[in-house]
């Protein structure tokens, strides 16, 4: 039998490939995350030149030198970049419903933290003021999602 002589019904199958990674946080990000859970506090780290890095990386992105003291920052700040996701992809994005990714420069910090705005996300824009919406005590697990989202604050 030759291929051209055959009528072949298509055959398909749905498959899921899953990689259950555990991403090691290391001592610096590890303490940053522990503080979210235990202190409900966002910490940055000072690097040479005086800038405060949030989230802390343990080194300076400018010259590679080691980070120095820990510095507490506020849980509110200014949006410096926005990407609105109108059609989330299942499990690639954190939620099934539309939301916005934001980079937030928190008060006291010199770099921006990546997070999301869900409530009224269509109103968020560069320059919007936002504040962290924390999970209650007992529900925080030492993850960036201990902050449920950032919520828009009324314009000052």
């Amino acid at each position, binding site marked *: 039998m*030759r291929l051209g002589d055959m009528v072949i019904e298509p*055959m398909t*199958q749905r*498959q899921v490939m899953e990689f259950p990674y555990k991403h090691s946080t290391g001592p610096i990000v590890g*303490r940053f995350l522990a503080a979210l859970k235990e202190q409900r506090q966002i910490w940055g780290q000072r690097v040479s030149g005086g800038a405060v890095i949030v989230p802390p990386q343990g080194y300076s992105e400018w010259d590679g030198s080691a980070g120095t003291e820990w510095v507490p920052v506020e849980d509110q700040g200014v949006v410096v970049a926005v990407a609105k996701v109108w059609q989330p992809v299942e499990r690639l994005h954190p939620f099934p419903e539309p939301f916005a990714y934001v980079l937030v420069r928190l008060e006291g910090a010199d770099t921006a933290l990546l997070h999301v705005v869900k409530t009224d996300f269509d109103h968020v824009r560069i320059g919007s003021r936002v504040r962290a919406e924390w999970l209650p005590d007992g529900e925080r697990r030492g993850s960036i999602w201990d902050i449920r989202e950032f919520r828009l604050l009324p314009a000052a």
Partner: protein
Amino acid sequence: MKCSAPPETPVKYVEAVVWLPYHYVAGDYRAVYLRALKDKKILGSRCDVTKKVFVPPVINSPESFAPCSELVQVSDQGRITTFCIVNIPVIGRNLELPYVAASVLLDGADIPIFALIQECRTEDVHMGMRVEAVWKPDGQRQGDHEDILYFRPSQSSSSGEWPRPI
């Protein structure tokens, strides 16, 4: 609550699951090959130029690059060309250790398939050993690779000429 430093004990890890949903399309040859397993038939394709038979069937020969436009049936018996004794459990494969994974050159084929060998002591397995497929019982075969449960030492001699036209 004001603290002077973040907790001394760090979080050790975060979970980062990668989840990739695929919609796999078998293609013409693989569809025909899988459906034939339901009828206890193993198909290959024959190169138009070299006449070599590839199992599972391929559209083009990886050797000559010529089309393999004829589908043929090969035997469900063959010969072990090489093998490996597995002593380490594999996630997702619940087999009693040790077991043998082997390359089996089916009668009528020119390339071996990868197969599990059972009903045999691992120390008795050898290159050139004759083996035969053990199929799922009639009515239980689905037209997938699980239709061949494993291979075992041949209990009957292979009959006739292989490969055969279909």
